[in-house]
């Protein structure tokens, strides 16, 4: 059997900004190298509270000689993330992954645009890193739009700076960068981006994705990472359904965990 559930050990768990944690987990070497956009299901070893595992994107990954390690960037929003935040060095976590058949696709286009809302930066910055380091795309070709409610919510910028030549920062309250929604900032620049030579990748709250879908016509190649509550994470329970168009343009429910989490924006059905 190719896949397993892995025992990971927390080697660091730091509150890098109020309510935002960066957790580093050491995993056995059998853990497969993730594709950007893929995620893990994580739970505290041996504990039934919270009951379900939580999906978290892979923020970074590196392979050592006898094991590998992974970083997760997460925001405390409820019980599960609060308990994850409380884990200390040495705590054991059960991890399955990398999960998700739908991940970010390497762009053919010349312009690469990332649009992230808050914690949405997590999968996108891994993708930017990979494009830069593995596919040798020039950082000049990459533009990163990052939005948050306020300066406090802008996390992970350092890493993005390494790989993206252009960074546009927005906050709802103007406490850092432009005072605007990130989608508005992007919309202003939209005419700069030739639909035939631009690939757009977005991750963020549903209203942000929805706004994007209102401003991008189907000519644009745009992939977005979606979120839904999950139980199995592997496509078996059909719990994480999202309404999408099938090949015939008919509405059908796809599974965020296995058909996604990355989908083409134009395929989403807004219910």
């Amino acid at each position: 059997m190719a896949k397993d559930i892995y025992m990971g050990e927390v080697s660091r768990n730091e509150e890098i900004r109020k309510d935002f944690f960066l957790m580093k987990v050491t995993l056995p070497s059998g853990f497969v190298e993730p594709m950007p956009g893929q995620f893990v299901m994580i739970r505290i070893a041996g504990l039934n509270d919270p009951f379900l595992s939580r999906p978290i994107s892979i923020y970074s990954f590196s392979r050592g000689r006898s094991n590998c390690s992974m970083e997760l960037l997460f925001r405390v929003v409820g019980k599960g993330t609060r308990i994850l935040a409380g884990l200390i060095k040495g705590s054991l976590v059960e991890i399955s992954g990398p999960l998700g058949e739908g991940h970010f696709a390497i762009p053919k286009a010349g312009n690469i645009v990332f649009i992230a809302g808050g914690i949405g930066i997590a999968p996108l910055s891994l993708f930017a890193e990979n494009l830069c380091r593995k596919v040798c795309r020039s950082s000049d070709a990459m533009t990163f739009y990052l939005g948050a409610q306020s300066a406090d919510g802008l996390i992970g910028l350092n890493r993005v700076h390494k790989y993206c030549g252009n960074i546009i920062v927005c906050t709802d309250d103007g406490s850092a960068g432009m005072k605007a929604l990130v989608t508005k900032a992007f919309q202003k620049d939209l005419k700069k981006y030739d639909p035939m030579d631009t690939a757009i990748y977005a991750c963020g709250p549903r209203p942000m994705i929805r706004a994007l879908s209102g401003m991008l016509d189907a000519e644009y190649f745009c992939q977005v990472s979606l979120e839904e509550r999950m139980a199995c994470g592997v496509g078996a329970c059909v719990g994480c359904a999202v309404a999408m168009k099938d090949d015939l343009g008919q509405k059908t429910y796809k599974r965020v965990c296995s058909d996604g989490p990355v989908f083409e924006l134009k395929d989403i059905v807004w219910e």
Partner: protein
Amino acid sequence: MKVEIAGLKLKNPVMTASGTFGYGEEYSDYVDLNRLGGIVVKGLSLKPRPGNPPPRIMETSGGMLNAVGLQNVGVDVFIDEKLPFLRRYDVVVIANIYGESYKEYAQVAGKLSRAKGVHALEINVSCPNVKKGGLSFGSDPRAAAEVTRCVKAETHLPVIVKLTPNVTDIASIALSVENAGADAVSLINTITGMSIDLRARTPHLKNITGGLSGPAIKPVALRMVWQVAQKVSIPVIGIGGIMTAEDALEFMIAGAKAVQIGTASFINPCALVEIIDGIRHYLDENKIKNIKDIVGTLQT
């Protein structure tokens, strides 16, 4: 570890529970399907069903609610596209079926009986039957018996009737389907529950209510298995909140000849195999030769 249920020869008493293991493919990277006692596939209906709009699941204390709404590819696509994958394995395949009327149940049963690679049918009678005012076929002994008879008339395969726990007296329903010809009963399906988003003042599930599964319901499932096993003479398959080999063994001691594992696979994709290994280990340690020897041995 072999057990026989209504003529079906299972390698071991551990099967998947319908709706929690897809069509077998989804977990095949984690679980060697050849090791399973049986695979019960996701509920099948005559026509494909889109399922309910999301959100469909919510966590609860020690369990989860789901309102998937029987999303499935339909019996024809199942036979054409999903069954060939399962035929590659040496494993008992049980099709869980669902209809909105007696006739639909019979039609789905007929189609599956003619397909190669289906070894038994499990009738899901827990779905609301509109004609009976929102209650399900499974909560009325007469309706449950009638569904059983309709399906039996269309198939030569063993028929398992899966009972709903949302009833006053589950044993009387079990008796009723036994009399109607059921070859086995499986229980329990989920308990209807609800969860509320306090901030939004809406249900967490778009469908308002959903089915509760997981260890939270295990005590209820165990009680019902014990009650039913004392009443019927056909085999009983125990389901509900089984997470470990110990849980599975408790169901067998209460009277179940086999068990199904649902929600546990979500928590640990390798749960099925760990449970099979754990039962083996228990039998060895306690020098029990034949697993049948523990079924129904509860001392009260």
